[in-house]
């Protein structure tokens, strides 16, 4: 009776077993996510943070170092008998801050209740000392030592840049998967440009642990573990004393000072005014300080030497002169009548040769010179003729490093602008243009744009009589003693070296008897310079510009100063430039009245 039902029961046994075997096959063999989950459960990946490289000035003075800071990490599942009031007391938090910290903890992408997750960041050394003894009372909380940047002085902030937690965007772009959320990365300046040298290599230790997070020894006997490699130290080209002096002189002003050693392209001083204290962007209060600094209307984070694009003004006449000589449209002896009906001019002069025209910054002279360059009569069409001349002119000017980023070892360098035919086609919307439309570029006004770094590089190029090394801020990576290879290449301009003697003579005259004589000349050193007064939008005062190098023979320093809204180049900029030269070559100034004049900052009448 009912014997057939035995078969159904047998089928039931087989069926259940088959379902189990299929399900097991699915999760054990087909789906490999469980293996990964098991690893993240039981294997703790402990990152060994390397020490970030230190940064020195050219004379071995320390600029940037590391100071210890501590992150509090937590394994949520291990929290037991948590006394929140006591925790707040020990860690000096308000209950709201603690609640916020827990809320943020759970929102973190890498959050897992069984994994170490960062809970509080950047406890200072003092905080840590206070908390250390009490940490055992809070089960599940651990401290991870890290280091944050500290700065010996507040100088050179925009050049050094800052370090902060990697952003979501940067994390997404990190194709090599080197960084994890919470890692520090150089965000600007040298810290960003030399990130891969400074950061070193992180080590990783894999440790096994049980469900309570208790250490169960190294995974696979440590065969996957790697040691951390400390970051490389950098020696910058900056002369800290000169840098501090430059920032001292720039206080209360907007603008830049860039000083270069012409024979190497090493940047001796790199001042961006106004600046900020880099210590504010290191450590615990980074985010609130960053907010304040980045919303400052004076733009202290704006790295003016590389990013502020200005019209160059009269200093550009030297470049015009060199190009005109090279093109053969004038000789040093060519004289042009100072016809102020064409274009305005200033000072008492009437019919100068080339040297005289530079010395007195004669506008009609260079108007004439540019016409000779742009309209060589190669065709009868005045429009086409200007275009041909402009392209030739453009090639020469660009060879000085204008119109494109020079390639300094900092991010976000701007290119400036050297107009060409295409540019004017666009600017004029296809309508024809010729010399009479564009002649203001003759005197460094009009469409020309340069950044202060390019001006300093230009001064160095004249000092070198026709070539330059790409300006750079790091002269030695690690113990190598050499900068990046691209900074060892000499770049020649398209101008024959022999023509530069005219520029050098004229710049000497500017300081000794021309527009710059009162404030730029030094007693024992022959300074060569050129003033510039760049038109600004009224009612704002003109920008004050000065480029210089010294001594005349075997120049040791080339400098460009740009002071916004400070009037004539012969005043603020020339004073600052000569003080910088004096400081660098003589160790300090004997012209206290000039220094006071600069510090007083009343450059307008």
């Amino acid at each position, binding site marked *: 009776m009912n014997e057939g039902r*035995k078969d159904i029961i047998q089928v039931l046994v087989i069926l*259940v077993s088959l379902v*189990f075997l299929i399900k097991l096959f699915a999760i*054990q063999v087909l789906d490999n996510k469980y293996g990964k989950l*098991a690893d993240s459960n039981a*294997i703790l990946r402990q990152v060994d943070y390397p020490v970030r490289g230190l940064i020195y000035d050219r004379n071995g003075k320390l600029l940037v170092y590391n100071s210890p800071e501590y992150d509090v990490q937590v394994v949520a599942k291990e929290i037991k008998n948590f006394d929140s009031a006591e925790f707040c007391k020990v860690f000096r938090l308000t209950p709201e801050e603690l609640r916020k910290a827990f809320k943020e903890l759970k929102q973190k992408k890498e959050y897992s209740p069984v994994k170490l997750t960062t809970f509080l960041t950047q406890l200072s050394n003092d905080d840590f000392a206070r908390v250390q003894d009490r940490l055992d009372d809070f089960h599940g909380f651990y401290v991870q030592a890290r280091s944050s940047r500290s700065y010996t002085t507040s100088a050179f902030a925009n050049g050094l840049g800052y370090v902060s937690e990697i952003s979501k965007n940067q994390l997404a772009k990190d194709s090599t998967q080197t960084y994890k959320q919470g890692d520090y990365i150089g965000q600007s300046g040298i810290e960003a440009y030399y990130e891969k040298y400074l950061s070193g290599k992180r080590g990783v230790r894999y440790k096994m642990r*049980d469900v309570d997070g208790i250490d169960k020894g190294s995974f696979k006997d440590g065969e996957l573990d790697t040691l951390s490699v400390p970051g490389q130290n950098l020696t910058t080209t900056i002369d800290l004393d000169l840098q501090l002096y430059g920032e001292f002189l720039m206080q209360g002003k907007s603008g830049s000072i860039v000083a270069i050693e012409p024979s190497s392209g090493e940047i001796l001083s790199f001042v961006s005014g106004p600046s900020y204290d880099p210590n504010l962007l290191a450590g615990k209060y980074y985010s609130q300080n960053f907010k304040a600094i980045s919303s400052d209307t004076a733009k202290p984070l704006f790295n003016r030497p590389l990013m502020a694009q200005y019209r160059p003004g009269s200093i550009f006449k030297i470049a015009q002169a060199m190009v005109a000589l090279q093109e053969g449209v004038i000789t040093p002896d060519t004289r042009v009548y100072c016809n102020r009906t064409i274009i305005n001019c200033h000072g008492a002069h009437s019919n100068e040769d080339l040297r005289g025209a530079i010395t007195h910054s004669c506008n009609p002279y260079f108007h004439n010179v540019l016409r000779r360059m742009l309209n060589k009569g190669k065709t009868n069409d005045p429009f086409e003729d200007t275009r041909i001349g402009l392209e030739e002119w453009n090639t020469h000017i660009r060879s000085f490093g204008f119109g494109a980023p020079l390639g300094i070892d900092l991010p976000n360098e701007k290119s400036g602008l050297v107009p060409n035919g295409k540019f004017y086609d666009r600017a004029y919307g296809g309508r024809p243009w010729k010399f009479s439309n564009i002649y203001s570029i003759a005197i460094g006004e009009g469409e020309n744009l340069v950044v202060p770094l390019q001006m300093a590089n230009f001064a160095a190029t004249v000092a070198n009589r026709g070539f330059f090394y790409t300006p750079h801020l790091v002269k030695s990576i690690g113990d190598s003693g050499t900068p990046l290879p691209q900074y060892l290449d000499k770049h020649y301009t398209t101008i024959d070296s022999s023509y530069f003697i005219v520029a050098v003579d004229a710049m000497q005259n500017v300081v000794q008897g021309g527009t710059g004589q009162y404030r730029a000349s030094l007693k024992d050193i022959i300074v060569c310079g050129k003033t510039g007064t760049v038109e600004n939008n009224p009612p704002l005062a003109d920008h004050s510009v000065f480029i210089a190098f010294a001594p005349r023979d075997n120049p040791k320093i080339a400098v460009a100063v740009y002071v916004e809204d400070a009037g004539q180049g012969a005043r603020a900029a020339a004073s600052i430039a000569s003080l910088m030269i004096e400081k660098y070559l003589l160790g300090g100034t004997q012209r206290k009245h000039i220094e006071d004049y600069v510090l007083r900052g009343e450059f307008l009448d």
Partner: protein
Amino acid sequence: MDWVTVMLYAVLVLLGWLNIYASVYDETIGQSIFDFSLSPGRQLLFMAAGVVIIIAILIIDMRFYDTFAYIIYGAILFLLILVPIIGKEVGGNKAWLGIGSFGVQPSEFAKFATALAVAKFVGTIGFRMDNLRNQLMLFVMIGVPMILILLQKDTGTALVFTSFLIVFYREGMSPFLIIVGIACAIIFVLALLVENNIYLYAVIGVVWAVLVFFSRKKKFKRIALLTVGALLVIGLLQSVDYVVDNVLKPHQQNRVKALINPDADPLGYGWNVTQSKIAIGSGGFWGKGFLKGTQTKFDFVPEQSTDFIFCTIGEEHGWLGSLITIGLWVVLMMRIIFIAERQKNRFTRVFAYSTLAIMLFHFSVNIGMTVGLFPVIGIPLPFFSYGGSSLWGFTIMLFILLKLDAHRGQVLQRI
């Protein structure tokens, strides 16, 4: 003596012992498998006691089990009544009777005792399964221990007694009841799995339409019946949410929820299922090797030596180990069916099927919960899970069967 079953029993118990060792093994300490302060050492003691029990069972006259079936059943019921009164609480469940530091769970012994009583009752000469009074009596026999065990809040063990339905089915009870029960369970699970009841209503509608369309004879009556059936199913569906929210206790609700979506709260009610699946799933095809598992031995899986012992097999021995384990079980269960069917005596056959049904239930629910196919119902995997009461309960049940089977010729002579 059926030596095939004895061998299978020995292999399963030994494998269980090794896996209990693996589940508590800690490389940094390097415990001994013979350390009597730890579960593998104690399990060895339980196994030794098991051998004593086996010998006792084999020595006792086979007629004892038939004769004293009701008395054994009654005695166990008495113990079950004692448990809530003088029992001690272990792990939240008051299911233990203790003498000093030594405790037993009477509920583990209630299984074979009930099996004896049911076998005795069904084996009575003149017993007819289609008699409604007999059926009612059988439900009372399994219902009383069930309720007493439910009073101990041990829902898992109580549910084991529903497995007697398989025995009743084999002995001639109409499958209608079983089918309705299984259908209700399926509908219950479907109602939980499918978020939107509209899909289920649509399926019911289609099934109803198809059945109506193909029923030629007695059309009116058929349609009426089908409509009533469909409405009943819809009513059941509607009541599921009510049952889950209002009838089940919070921890039971959570277990059901964990089955449906363990990722919703992986730390809370989903923890067991999630960690269990991680452990088993990380074993791969070949497994991580004996004592090489990280999930079970580092305590990520809760109850890893008792209810979740299968995780250790899955993690350390992979799919292959799971296949062998499940294979051994299938062979054992098929062998018991084979033994049951060769009995000429109804008492032994019913007892054999009871043994099979209880083992099948444990096997299905235990492995089903570790791989996430059933809610977490805390019942052990027979012979594998750590614990004296469970091991002895199943040992007694299996060896009574083997004793009865060994004397099957004698029984025939007697009748």
